[in-house]
């Protein structure tokens, strides 16, 4: 469809005219602009909602909200076209079969072997070995070999050695969806462990001997402690209500030596609404500070984030400081339980704060233990009430931790944002389906590619320059602020206003330091070469003249420029008053810059990884502006990009 206008949310006067294409996998908007032909690509699977608004004189507005928090406003001249697009997108955004998803057609041009290698990058058996199991207390159990006991669990599950198959099966029958207690994390230093399960089917009075024996076995697997914590991550009221349905929570009297604890994390419906409310705040056009803060508070989002963190901190402390094992559950044990177990593991074990370890952590606590990716993130058309930002919240918890301890993580914010993006993109097979069983049936590994291999390949982009493996923050347990320090939790504009570049800091410390480190590495290499040459020269000083290696090309020094100049030089609408001033000169560069805000760098990158969003790489691109001469002057781009500023320099 031609003559479509793409509106800029930040300022209504800037709109790009272009052509809209619908393909089998993407919505593509190509700007008419002569040279650059900026393109905006949106994967169908990213589309969260499409809204057709009332037709106006200029055309028919179409609002597309994406799961990665991009919001696209289009104005389509013909009402009929708009309707057709609307209908097509509704169909395309909600596929009914897995085979329709992008990952089945996505081909990064890797051969079979490379694909298999990619899937082998994260290996959970290795991971359990790394933790120190199997050992004298824990063993792998094969009761779920054919998903016979629990179809949402993996085949390989670790349980206490003293838990016989009879106990496991018995316990599974007493647990929602038969999700019996299984090992999530084992701390080799003190034998304390984190186990996970679903709620017991206790109702008001029911008991199950095997389940009681199961918990006893978990306690015995940690000989240093005479009790275990049972953490129910639900609000007490919710758990009590469940009793009426024959479910509920453990009665301390029936289990020997457990300490029972509620930690009130709200359910998926509350979280869905909370996110919805927060996104409405993010979408406000020029909100006042009060509108924003009030809306943020009213959404309750940060309160929920804090609740999850608090639960993780409680468990990490129990394991690290008290040496007590913990059993975590919620209702089904696949949402809040996954959040809390993974936050706790992240705090306890520095390995999970590395890039590879973080991949492993998501595979372990989320993918393998049957977090329902398909239902929660709406990959296939399904019940909208099943959708909820569960893993988004976990990812945000990690970001909040990164903000509080900047040296503790090997990866940077970009890494988190890309993972979030791909949880929804369905471009890679990792997060398809609701369980390992379903993925195996679909032969995901033979038919799709693994995200982890892709991220690993580009790992240089995801490094945190402040990370050092021998730094104190990368050793042992990470203690976030444990006192009730609410004000440490901040709104994450890098995620929720991700596509509004105009709102973000214009210079990135991370990118700057990454460039410095890269330069440092080159210097180290050069130093070595120079040293060798010097030694040779000194040796052959007396007679021969053979040392004439002219290597002046060494000066690969590059100047660093992290400022996103094109953006930095665009003032925003600071006042509406200015518009009315008759003699307003059309400020130069304004139009050119404006479009960047939404779709910057969407010039269809050769890397198909982030179809719509190669913008994340833009920072790196900025850094690549190195002047080969290594002159100590200002980055030449500055003066080149904006003739205005060149005058300023000369003046």
């Amino acid at each position: 469809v031609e003559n479509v206008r793409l509106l800029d949310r930040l300022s209504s006067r800037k709109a790009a005219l272009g052509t809209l294409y619908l393909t089998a996998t993407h919505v593509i908007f190509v700007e008419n602009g002569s040279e650059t032909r900026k393109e905006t690509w949106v994967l169908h699977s990213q589309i969260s909602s499409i809204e057709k608004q009332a037709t106006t004189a200029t055309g028919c507005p179409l609002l597309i909200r994406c799961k990665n928090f991009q919001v696209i406003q289009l104005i389509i001249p013909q009402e009929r076209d708009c309707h057709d697009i609307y209908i097509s997108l509704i169909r395309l955004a909600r596929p009914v079969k897995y085979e329709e998803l992008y990952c089945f057609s996505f081909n990064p041009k890797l051969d079979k072997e490379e694909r298999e290698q990619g899937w082998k990058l994260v290996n959970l058996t290795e991971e359990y070995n790394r933790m120190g199991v199997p050992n004298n207390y824990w063993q792998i159990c094969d009761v779920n070999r054919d998903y016979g006991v629990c179809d949402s669990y993996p085949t390989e599950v670790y349980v206490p050695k003293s838990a016989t198959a009879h106990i496991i099966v018995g316990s599974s029958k007493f647990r929602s969806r038969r999700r019996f207690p299984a090992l999530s994390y084992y701390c080799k230093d003190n034998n304390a462990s984190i186990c996970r399960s679903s709620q017991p089917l206790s109702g008001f009075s029911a008991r199950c001997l095997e389940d009681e024996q199961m918990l006893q076995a978990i306690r015995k697997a940690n000989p240093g402690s005479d009790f275990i914590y049972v953490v129910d991550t639900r609000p007490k009221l919710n758990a009590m209500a469940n009793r009426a349905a024959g479910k509920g929570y453990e009665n301390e009297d029936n289990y020997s030596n457990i300490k029972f604890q509620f930690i009130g994390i709200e359910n998926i419906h509350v979280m869905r609404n909370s996110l919805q409310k927060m996104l409405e705040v993010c979408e406000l056009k020029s909100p006042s500070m009060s509108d924003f803060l009030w809306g943020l508070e009213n959404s309750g989002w940060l309160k929920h984030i804090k609740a999850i963190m608090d639960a993780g901190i409680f468990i990490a402390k129990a394991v690290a400081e008290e040496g007590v094992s913990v059993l975590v559950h919620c209702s089904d044990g696949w949402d809040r339980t996954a959040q809390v177990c993974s936050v706790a593991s992240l705090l306890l074990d520095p390995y999970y704060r590395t890039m590879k370890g973080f991949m492993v952590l998501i595979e372990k606590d989320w993918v393998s233990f049957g977090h329902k990716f398909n239902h929660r993130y709406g990959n296939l058309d399904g019940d909208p009430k099943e959708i909820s930002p569960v893993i988004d919240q976990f990812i945000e918890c990690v970001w909040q931790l990164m903000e509080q301890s900047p040296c503790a993580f090997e990866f940077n914010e970009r890494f988190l944002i890309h993972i979030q993006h791909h949880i929804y993109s369905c471009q890679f097979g990792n997060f398809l389906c609701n369980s390992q069983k379903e993925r195996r049936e679909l032969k995901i590994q033979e038919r799709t590619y693994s995200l982890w291999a892709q991220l690993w390949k580009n790992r240089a982009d995801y490094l945190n320059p402040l990370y050092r493996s021998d730094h104190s923050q990368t050793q042992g347990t990470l203690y976030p602020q444990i006192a009730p320090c609410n004000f440490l939790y901040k709104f994450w504009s890098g995620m929720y206003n991700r596509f509004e570049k105009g709102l973000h800091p214009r210079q990135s410390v991370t990118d700057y330091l990454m460039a410095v480190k890269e330069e440092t590495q080159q210097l180290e290499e050069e130093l070595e070469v120079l040293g060798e040459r010097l030694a040779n020269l000194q040796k052959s000083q007396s007679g021969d003249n053979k040392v004439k290696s002219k290597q002046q090309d060494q000066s690969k020094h590059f100047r660093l420029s992290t400022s996103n100049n094109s953006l930095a030089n665009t003032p925003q609408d600071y006042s509406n008053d200015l518009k009315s001033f008759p003699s307003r000169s059309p400020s130069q560069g304004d139009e050119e810059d404006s479009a960047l805000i939404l779709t910057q760098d969407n010039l269809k990158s050769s890397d198909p990884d982030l179809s719509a969003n190669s913008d994340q790489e833009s920072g790196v691109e900025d850094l690549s502006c190195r002047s080969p001469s290594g002159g100590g002057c200002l980055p030449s781009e500055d003066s080149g990009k904006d003739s205005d500023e060149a005058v300023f320099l000369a003046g």
Partner: protein
Amino acid sequence: DEWRLSCINRDFSVCHSYPPVVIVPKSVNDEELRKVALFRHGNRFPVLSYYHRKNGMIMMRSSQPLTGTNGRRCKEDEKLINATLRPGKRGYIIDTRSLNVAQQARAKGGGFEQEVHYPQWRRIHKGIERFNILQESLIKLVEACNDQSHNMDRWLSKLEASNWLTHVKEILTTACLAAQCIDREGASVLVHGTEGTDSTLQVTSLAQIILDPRCRTIRGFESLVVREWLQAGHPFQQRCAQSAYSNSKQKWEAPVFLLFLDCVWQILRQFPCSFEFNENFLILLFEHAYASQFGTFLGNNENERAKLKLPQKTMSLWSWVNGTEEINRFLNPIYEANSLVIWPAVAPQSLQLWAGVFLRWNRPSKYLDEAQEEMVRIINYNKELQAKVKVLRRHLAELEAGGRMQENP
């Protein structure tokens, strides 16, 4: 060529809150200046605050004109203001008060420029709050930051209720507007509020940080504070007496300077590589504005400082800061001179609470300090290697040259 230094205020007789020497248009003589002074609140006649070299546009500041309810005029004032515009150019008068407040000021003898009398100028009103409103905002904010007992919701609502970030946003927006008029619209600007000693200075000094890269260096920032705050007569003694924990209501107390520093921090956060100094430098200035062993921030204006003989009796903060040992603490390791105009974002999502000041005593800073150290380490290591490579290269070149010399004697 269009401006001159005037010593009219040599003995502080024309305007007691101005410095002895000011910059005024060449075409206006001292006699006319005296008349203009009588037409402006506190005799603060319009003076040059900033000259934008890039396009020759200028920023002036003053206090409100004393138009009163019957619309008094002063032809010297009109002459002065118009004399600053080049032929065919327009200017903006940025009144830091809302139209309503400015209108009310007429009843007390104050007021604003009528556009009919200043035809080449367009007036824009912006509502920057004053005095006790700012002071109450600070007290509420500090109270909220100190109360660790409340939950997330209460914290956010208290932060909101303090309105502190609203003030930050308003001041920054007005400063950006002034900068935009100058740099983008190619227009000159006159800024004033009521007295021209508070919100006016916030706006003119922030606009210079946005426009002028020199203000983002340590020395440049120091001289900005000297020019636009100390010499311009911001009454530090009245404004910075008690800070947030005062029981007695001080009429003149207001965190005007702190708000300015907060705004600078917001810009620094958005352009972390463009400032030669770091957050510690801003915190230092905040502390010394309220309590200091140096004489720099004492008194309300140059006049008082001269009478107290402060330059003779006390040490200057600047000479201490600029001492080589101290200055390292205030250097930004990742500074890279940026000659451009820097436009900060002013959306609520882009502004944050200045934790370095307000949460300084209630947050653990160990991890953050370590991050800072790590950053310095990375940069220093890089510099060290650069130096080594340079030495080796020279050494090598010398040896090679020597080798050649031996070859062909």
